[in-house]
């Protein structure tokens, strides 16, 4: 069992007897420090999607499916193709990548985990952190160096995240792929 707060894109959870792959997670803060977790799910039996909310501490049954370490190979619209150590290729539908798609770039070397259900690759879990280059960011307006003032930025691959105000175009930054948060400039 995991709490809703611990669920990540790529996890598969059981609800009412059906397996659902988590495509996207969004955690927000309600009153009195309580977390609200919004999940975008896809039913693996019916191939249908839904959005649902949980309290952060709600317990969810995550199921362990077959997983393989793979690297990203190429994109063949609408499939992302991954390859394992023995050069077997696996196609993953773009919509099943969820937020992981923000960090996929050509030539990336990080090892991802591809999850299989009923012999089919159904999701991809990124490493906890990745390093990406900032390709667009507004100029630093306030001269803030504390890291508390944030601004939107675009990273290689087109993903958009909020970064510290001092980050510039061309900087390489570390990102937490579980939350999409900027960690630091590297």
């Amino acid at each position: 069992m995991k709490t809703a707060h611990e669920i990540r894109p790529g996890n598969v959870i059981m609800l009412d007897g059906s397996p659902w792959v988590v495509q996207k997670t969004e955690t927000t803060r309600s009153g009195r420090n309580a977390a609200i977790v919004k999940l975008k799910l896809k039913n693996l039996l019916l191939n249908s999607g839904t959005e649902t909310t949980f309290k952060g501490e709600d317990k969810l049954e995550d199921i362990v499916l077959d997983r393989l370490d793979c690297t990203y190979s190429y994109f063949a619209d609408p499939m992302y193709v991954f390859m394992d150590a023995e050069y077997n290729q696996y196609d993953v539908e773009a919509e099943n990548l969820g937020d992981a798609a923000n960090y996929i770039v050509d030539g990336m070397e990080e090892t991802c985990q591809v999850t299989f259900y009923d012999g089919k690759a159904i999701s991809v879990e990124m490493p906890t952190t990745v390093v990406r280059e900032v390709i667009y960011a507004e100029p630093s307006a306030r001269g803030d160096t504390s890291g508390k003032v944030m601004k939107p930025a675009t990273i290689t691959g087109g993903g958009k995240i909020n970064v510290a105000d001092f980050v510039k175009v061309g900087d390489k930054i570390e990102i937490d792929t579980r939350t999409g948060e900027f960690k630091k400039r590297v």
Partner: protein
Amino acid sequence: MINMPRANHWDIFCTVVDNYGDIGVTWRLAKQIANEYSIPVNLWVDDLASFSHILPALNPFKKVQSFSGVNIIHWAEPLPIGFIAGDVIVEAFACELPEQVKNQLLHLHQTDPKSVPIWLNLEYLSAEDWVEGCHGLPSLQANGLKKYFYFPGFTAKTGGLICEQNLFAQRDAWQADTANKLQLFNELNLKGIKAEDTVISIFSYETQALATLCELWQQGAKKVHALIPKGRSLHSLTHLLPCEIEALVPGQKIVHGNLTLHILPMTNQQSFDRLLWSCDINIVRGEDSFMRAQWAAKPFIWHIYPQEDDYHLVKLEAFLKIYCDNLAPEIAENWSKLNLAFNQAQQSAVDLHWQNLNPVSLPLLQHVKQWPINAINDADLATRLVQFVKNS
């Protein structure tokens, strides 16, 4: 388990967390659902002693009693009376339903799924953008039950704001005659307040910002009466008190220069509304008094419930942004900065922005009058909630 008969009532469950906030909201909602929609309501509350502070007629030792058309039931484990599921179950502010209730929901789901009540989690109020995207979404439970998250909010895509249908008319009638406020002050044993004096109610958490404001008011040119109940606000003003807080009595006056502190008695919700309507400025906290201060159509400072990592400031800024949307920029800036400074106990900034603001300026007074009409956004929370249930 036997199959119990169903009724068309609603059950609202509330755990009391900080004395008056959660129970204040749920009590208002229960009354409104019962009185304006003629729906029988059972309000299950775990702490009747705290509840009795805002409903003085409540007997904290009685398991079941009825007020304003609402059955109030002491929520103890096991439940003091048999639970019969009605049309709707509301768990207020993410409280955990009793096992007895959850078991019955599951039994209904397994035997007669159409008879399962609509199960709602009434969440906290927030002005943040994400609320629209989460309001009304189902929460799929592992056992097949479905619960909906209902988010109050300030926009048409949220669950709305708690406001009784005749509240604004009552307020306007009250504020039209100055004699009403003077009579209320008299009833509350608040002596020596003249119609032209500035009267400020204070219902905040502890903060040194209060000490700063009191110092300003002491030295100001005009008489200021600060009305404060025994409680958390006074912990920041002990240097102005003649005795321990516990020894203060309602009606007691403490004079420092042009400032007179008055110790308020605890009041019921209707009297609290009238108090807010009667003051020139209200300093309020949490969620319930925050909303009532807006409906009072008077300037206010909101002391928001503090959260980890200063996240409450994100929520405060989200509200300030929408509240100031139609306000003159200079006033909006000062009012926002005053609220932010108050919430961060930045004493010199509180001092500066209070003096810059002039809380009785005409554009601000016009804005506070118009804001409740805009904020209701066609329908209040109870109306939207009843409609949501019909559509679910």
